[in-house]
C-alpha cells in the first residue's frame, strides 16, 4: 500500500460561534414543563414522576461560559487540479464539545466520491472529517461548504466553513493541430508547407542543379529522361493560432454550458498546437475585450487557462476588435472562434474578422435545442423554425467562406475537425 502525498498543515483559525439551545434542551424542557403543568392542573403530584428525570437531566447538564469563537479550518488539497480529478477536503474543529457533526454540501457540478456526507466526531476523538470530491466544471471556485454542528451539553453552535478557492483547469479534449491557414509563417515548424524546402513530405521533381545532394536523385526519372533529376521535399513551417472565445452567451446546466464547452475546446486546441511548437494566443469576446499575444511553450497553456477563468463577465458592451493590437492578432494567423452563434455581437465580430482578411474557422458549441412542449403544436413549430434559422445562419457563413464545425461535448475535438482535414483555410474578404 502506498502512502499519498503529505497533507498540508493548515493552522486553525478562530471562527465566531453563536451558541443556542440544543434541540435536546427544548425537548426535555417541553416535556418537563408540560408534566409539571399537568400535575398542577390535575392536582396529582404523583404525575411529577413522569417529568422529574427529564428536569434532573436538564439541571445536571454542563453549563457555564462557552467560547465565543471556535478554532476551525477546512482545507482543499490540491489547490489546483483539472476537471474530473480528486480533491481532498478535510475539516477540523478544535472545540471542547461533546460531539461535532460535519456535513458537506457540494457546490454545483461537484461530486462527492468518497466519505459519508454526514460525519460525527465524539468528544475524546479528533474532531475532523474527510471527503474526496471531484469538480466537473472549470473555474476558480469554492468546491463545497462544510457545516459543523458542535453540541456541548445543552448548547449548540453551528459553524459554516468554506475552503479556499480551488483553481480547476478545463480538461482538454483530444485534438490535432490539423487546421492550418493557407499561408504558413516563414518560421520552421512541424506543418507541411506548400513550398519546397527541407522537410520530409514529397513535393515534386526537378532537374539537378549544382549543390543538390546525390541522395535526392530520382533514379527512375533520371534513367528515363537521360538527365539527372532530384526529388523535392516540402518545407516544414510553423503556424500562429489565435483562439477566440465567445463569452456573450452562456447557456446550459452548470458544468456543461456553451461557455464551458468553448473553454474546454480552446484548451484542447491550445494543447495540440503548443505540442507541435506553434504559437497560440487567445482573444476573449466579452464585455471586456481581453487578449493574449501568441506565444509558444507549455507555460502559454496555463496563461490561456488563467485568462479563461475570468470570461464569465456579463455585459452589454460590444467589443471593438480594432482595439486588439497587431501582436495579438498577427497577420497570417489562423483564428478559431468557439461560439454558440447566438449573440449578434459575436456575428458582428465574425464580419469584422472577414473584413480584416483573417483565416477564420468557427466551432459551434451549441449542443442543445430549445425545449419543446410535446403537447403544444406551436411550440414544436417554433423549434422547427429555430432549426431552420440555425441552418440558414450556418449556410450563410459557409457561403461566405467561413467554415462552421459542429462540436458535441461527448466527442473529442478530432471528430469535429475531420471535415476540414487536409484543407487549408483561406482568408476571404
Amino acid at each position, binding site marked *: 500500500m502506498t502512502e499519498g502525498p503529505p497533507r498540508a498543515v493548515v493552522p486553525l483559525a478562530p471562527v465566531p460561534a453563536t451558541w*443556542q*439551545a*440544543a*434541540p*435536546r434542551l*427544548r*425537548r*426535555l*424542557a*417541553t*416535556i*418537563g*414543563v*408540560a408534566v*409539571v*403543568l*399537568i400535575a*398542577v392542573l*390535575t392536582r396529582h*403530584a*404523583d*404525575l*411529577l*414522576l*413522569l*417529568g*422529574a*428525570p*427529564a*428536569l*434532573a*437531566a*436538564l*439541571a*445536571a447538564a454542563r*453549563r457555564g*461560559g462557552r467560547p465565543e469563537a471556535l478554532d476551525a479550518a477546512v482545507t482543499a488539497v490540491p489547490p489546483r487540479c483539472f476537471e474530473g480529478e480528486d480533491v481532498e477536503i478535510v475539516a477540523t474543529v478544535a472545540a471542547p464539545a*461533546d460531539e461535532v*457533526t460535519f456535513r458537506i454540501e*457540494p457546490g454545483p*457540478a*461537484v*461530486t*462527492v*466520491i*468518497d466519505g*459519508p*456526507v*454526514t*460525519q*460525527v466526531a*465524539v*468528544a475524546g*476523538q479528533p474532531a475532523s472529517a474527510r471527503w474526496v470530491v471531484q469538480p*466537473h466544471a472549470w473555474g476558480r471556485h469554492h468546491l463545497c461548504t462544510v457545516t459543523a454542528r458542535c453540541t456541548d*451539553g*445543552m448548547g449548540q453552535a453551528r459553524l459554516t466553513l468554506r475552503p479556499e478557492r480551488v483553481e480547476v483547469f478545463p480538461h482538454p479534449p483530444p485534438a490535432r493541430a490539423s487546421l492550418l491557414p493557407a499561408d504558413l509563417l516563414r518560421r520552421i515548424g512541424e506543418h507541411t508547407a506548400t513550398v519546397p524546402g527541407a522537410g520530409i513530405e514529397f513535393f515534386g521533381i526537378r532537374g539537378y542543379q549544382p549543390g543538390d545532394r546525390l541522395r535526392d536523385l530520382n533514379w527512375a526519372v533520371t534513367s528515363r529522361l537521360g538527365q539527372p533529376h532530384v526529388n523535392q521535399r516540402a518545407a516544414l513551417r510553423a503556424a500562429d493560432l489565435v483562439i477566440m472565445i465567445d463569452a456573450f452567451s452562456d447557456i446550459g*446546466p*452548470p*458544468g456543461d454550458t456553451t461557455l464551458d464547452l468553448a473553454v474546454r475546446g480552446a484548451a484542447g486546441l491550445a494543447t495540440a498546437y503548443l505540442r507541435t511548437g506553434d504559437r497560440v494566443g487567445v482573444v476573449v469576446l466579452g464585455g471586456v475585450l481581453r487578449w493574449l499575444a501568441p506565444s509558444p511553450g507549455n507555460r502559454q497553456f496555463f496563461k490561456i487557462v488563467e485568462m479563461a477563468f475570468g470570461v464569465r463577465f456579463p455585459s452589454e458592451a460590444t467589443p471593438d476588435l480594432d482595439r486588439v493590437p497587431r501582436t495579438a492578432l498577427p497577420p497570417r494567423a489562423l483564428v478559431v472562434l468557439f461560439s454558440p452563434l447566438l449573440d449578434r455581437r459575436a456575428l458582428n465580430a465574425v464580419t469584422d474578422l472577414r473584413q480584416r482578411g483573417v483565416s477564420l474557422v468557427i466551432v459551434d458549441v451549441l449542443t442543445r435545442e430549445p425545449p419543446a412542449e410535446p403537447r403544444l403544436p406551436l411550440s414544436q413549430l417554433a423549434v422547427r423554425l429555430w432549426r431552420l434559422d440555425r441552418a440558414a445562419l450556418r449556410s450563410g457563413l459557409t457561403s461566405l467562406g467561413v467554415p462552421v464545425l459542429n462540436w458535441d461535448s461527448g466527442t473529442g475535438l478530432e471528430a469535429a475537425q475531420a471535415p476540414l482535414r487536409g484543407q487549408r483555410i483561406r482568408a476571404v474578404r
Partner: protein
Amino acid sequence: MSGPGGGIRSTRRPRLGDVITRLVTGCLGVGMILLPTPHLTGRSWALVAAGLVLVAASLAGPLARWRIVGTLAAAAAVAEATLTRPDLAVLAWEGLLILGYLLLVDAPRAMSGSKAAHWLWRQLPLAVWGVCAAAIVLLVLAVRVPVSAWLLVAGAGAAAAAVVIALPRRPPQPREPR
C-alpha cells in the same frame, strides 16, 4: 448522482452504531408507549397507535428530520400516563423510559460502532441523574404527608429553575475603554 450536474455519488450503508442506537431508541420508545396500556380503556387506545407511529417516524423515514416528532411521541406517552393514572412504580419507570427515549432520539446519525459506544457512555451521567431524581420523587411521594399545594408550587419552581440553569449563557461583553 454523477456527471456535470454534481451531487453525491457515494451510497451510504447503515452503520452498525447507527443501527444499534436506533434499535435501543425504538425499544425505549415502544416501552414508554406500551407501559401504561394495561390500564387503558375505550378510545384511549388511539393514543397507543398514534404514539407507536410517532416513535417509528422519529427513527426512520422522511419525518425523522423533524425534531418535533420525537417530542410528540413523548407527549403521547405522558398523555397516556395521565389518562390511566398507574401506580407510582409504573410512573417512575415511565418517566425514566421517556428520559431515555428523549436522550437517544437526538443521537447523531452515521456513527460507527465505537463512536456510538463512546457517545452512549457520555449520556450515562444524565441517565444517572434522572434515576436519582426519580428515586427522590418516588420517596417523597411514598411518604404520607398532608396534601399541600406548596409542594406542587415548589416542583414547578424547581422545573423553571432547572430550565433557567441549563440555558446557555452569553458571556459578558467586555467594557469599552474610555
